[in-house]
């Protein structure tokens, strides 16, 4: 056993209101520099939809993630032998058109335009070339199902649906959407790290955050191609790749990352998971249908004395183990089992989990009467507007069972709370639903509390970084005497 700590995340999709506050918080802090304007380390997609970059989930096109060859995971984008030929022109590298060309507006013209018959306008200007452009697409062009016939209809996950299911999905009275906020998953088996020819990408041992060493990066672009979630980006100005850093300067000082902190719907949870690093490869080699269980088995019980002892021996600090015991992520993923990883079939072992959204109550229109067609207790799940197969393709590695389990439990919790607070449902019925969802009133109350009444400190259990014990004490205190500051002092200027 090689026990390490990983800062992990849960996004509760039923709570996401699609306000994009997270994206803006991130953009304002990290990606408003030249060369990064097109990057959205955090973005919110409308599902069904094609996402950002367009159709990123189609790995036949983007070649991201791992595939099994002879039972071993190997990178889909690059083998070791291919690394040199791919260096000149990476065949799986997306171009800016796959994202969008960032633009601003010619605001100056509003003030400086000569007097004329018409009001002056502010034309869109490309933030790359500075030339006027015709805006054709943006990172969120299909927000709230805008342009569904083009965008939502091309959602890659529809490959799991029958033509009938697809047709039903777009009938106006059945229309359904949800939001899918995405950041870097800080995977346990990151394809970006494995693909980097220079070894510039790395996972931090202490907390599992995946970073790019800007000094080591040589701009070979392999990480951009290899990440199946397309969450590494190429800075066209500096010639270096960049990615979400999980706001590590904030995390190290005990604050939640900016996107978490600013989340209006309070959908985001952050906490430590203890995992067994020795078994990552074994788990990543599982068959598709076993993947979710395999990943769960990597995550260890932080209350198990044997695990605690092994973690301590491996140098995991007591305070980190304590954080792991308080971790909301552990509860969602391992105890309640209602949070699932996105597209685990890419085999990167993402450490960001999603609580799948419940669809609105199903109803059918007969004549002028809208009637509830629900028959059984959980009838709505299988007859939902959004077919389970769709959610399973996203969050279940194709297995509807895992998604159904998560949705059933959520539904039972709702009915249980309604029985308690409104009282128009019999308690015995609610209890039966909980039993059928393999839950209990105690667990339902805990889920309810963590979902509806969670405070800042419930949602974000940031482990202490213990920097005071790591490096500063070993450094020569005189090192920076009489120098202007510390670290990376020259501006990240392009080229020679």
């Amino acid at each position, binding site marked *: 056993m090689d026990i390490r700590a990983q800062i992990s995340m849960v996004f509760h999709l039923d709570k996401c209101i699609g306000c994009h506050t997270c994206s803006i918080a991130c953009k304002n802090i990290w990606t408003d520099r030249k060369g990064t304007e097109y990057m959205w380390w955090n973005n919110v997609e409308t599902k069904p939809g094609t996402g950002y970059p367009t159709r990123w989930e189609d790995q036949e096109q983007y070649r991201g993630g791992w595939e099994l060859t002879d039972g071993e995971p190997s990178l889909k984008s690059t083998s*070791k032998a291919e*690394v040199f030929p791919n*260096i*000149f*022109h*990476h065949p799986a*590298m*997306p*171009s*800016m058109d796959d994202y969008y060309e960032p633009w601003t507006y010619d605001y100056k013209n509003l003030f400086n335009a000569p007097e004329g018959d018409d009001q002056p306008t502010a034309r869109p200007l*490309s933030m*790359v*070339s*500075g*030339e006027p452009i015709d805006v054709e697409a943006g990172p969120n062009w299909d927000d709230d199902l805008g342009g569904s016939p083009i965008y939502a209809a091309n959602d890659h996950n529809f490959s799991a649906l029958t033509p009938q299911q697809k047709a039903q999905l777009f009938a106006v009275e059945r229309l359904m959407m949800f939001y899918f906020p995405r950041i870097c998953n800080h995977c346990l*088996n*990151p394809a970006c*790290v*494995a693909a*980097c*020819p*220079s*070894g510039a*990408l*790395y*996972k*931090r*041992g*202490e907390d599992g955050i995946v970073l790019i*060493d*800007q*000094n*080591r*990066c*040589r*701009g*070979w*672009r392999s990480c*951009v191609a290899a990440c199946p979630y397309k969450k590494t980006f*190429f800075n*066209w*100005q*500096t*010639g*270096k790749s960049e990615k979400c850093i999980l706001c590590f300067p904030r995390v190290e000082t005990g604050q939640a990352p900016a996107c978490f902190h600013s989340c209006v719907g309070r959908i985001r949870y952050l906490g430590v998971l203890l995992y067994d690093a020795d078994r*990552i490869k074994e788990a990543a080699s599982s068959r598709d249908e076993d993947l979710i269980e395999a990943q769960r088995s990597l995550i260890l019980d932080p209350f198990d004395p044997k695990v605690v002892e092994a973690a301590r021996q491996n140098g995991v600090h007591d305070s980190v183990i304590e954080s792991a015991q308080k971790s909301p992520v552990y509860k969602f993923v391992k105890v309640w089992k209602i949070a699932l990883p996105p597209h685990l079939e890419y085999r990167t072992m993402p450490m960001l989990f999603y609580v799948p959204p419940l669809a609105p109550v199903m109803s059918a229109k007969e004549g002028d009467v809208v009637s509830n067609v629900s028959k059984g207790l959980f009838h709505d799940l299988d007859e939902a507007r959004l077919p389970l197969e769709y959610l399973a393709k996203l969050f279940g590695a194709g297995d509807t069972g895992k998604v159904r389990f998560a949705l059933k439990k959520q539904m039972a919790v709702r009915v249980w709370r309604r029985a308690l607070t409104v009282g128009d449902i019999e308690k015995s019925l609610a209890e039966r639903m909980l039993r059928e969802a393999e839950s209990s009133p105690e667990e339902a109350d805990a889920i309810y509390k963590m979902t509806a009444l969670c405070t800042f400190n419930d949602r974000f259990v940031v482990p202490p970084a213990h*920097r005071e*014990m*790591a*490096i500063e004490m*070993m450094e020569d205190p005189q*090192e920076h005497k009489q120098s202007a500051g*510390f*670290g*990376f002092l*020259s501006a990240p*200027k*392009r*080229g*020679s």
Partner: protein
Amino acid sequence: MTNAYFDLFFFGVFPYISLAVFLVMVIYRYRTREFTYSSLSSQLLENQHHFHGMVPFHYGILAVLTGHLVAFLLPQQLLLWNLKPLRLYVLEISTFVCALLSLFGLLNLLVRRGVSPALRKVTLLSDWILFGMLLVQIALGIQIAIFHPWGSSWFAASLTPYLWSLVALSPDLAFVVPMPLLVKAHIVGAFILIAYFPFTRLVHVLVAPVPYLWRKPQVVRWYGSPSNLARGGRLP
């Protein structure tokens, strides 16, 4: 004779200046501004034309440079190989094709950068100068191959001794001075390129990721690890 002084400077002195500038500046730049060691790829901004430029250029130029290197390191073996005319023709023609390939690629890259307003934004003046120098150098090489053929033999027989005399720190200009003007220009061009190398994007050649071939797939860095401490204990 001013010509003699020219020859002495360009073939006896300038090579050392050029190599000294190369070595000092390459190391200095790596140590002070490692950040600038990048391929400065522009594939993100333009992905189609990129293939038709980068791939022929790189394969072509690598093959041609390998040819030069072989003539420098293994002149006798090369001369032995060239004893049979057929083998000489095969070698000459295949290197010539590679040279044309690199020229074709470079021209494509120049057009590509010239045409796109976005790419012009990421092309520095030093890039344009470098592309111009590469173009001249490749064009000179191709002209030499046409007008003074069988270079693989006469390079190995007469220029390799000159280059080794440079290495031995006693430049012997006897073979260089009578060379045709095209060849002389090509040699001077090469040393100018070597001197200009550290100030351009060419430095990416020096950080070709060879260790990738044997390293483990996943990279983990520990904050207090010995290797991190060895790097001055600072986070990268």
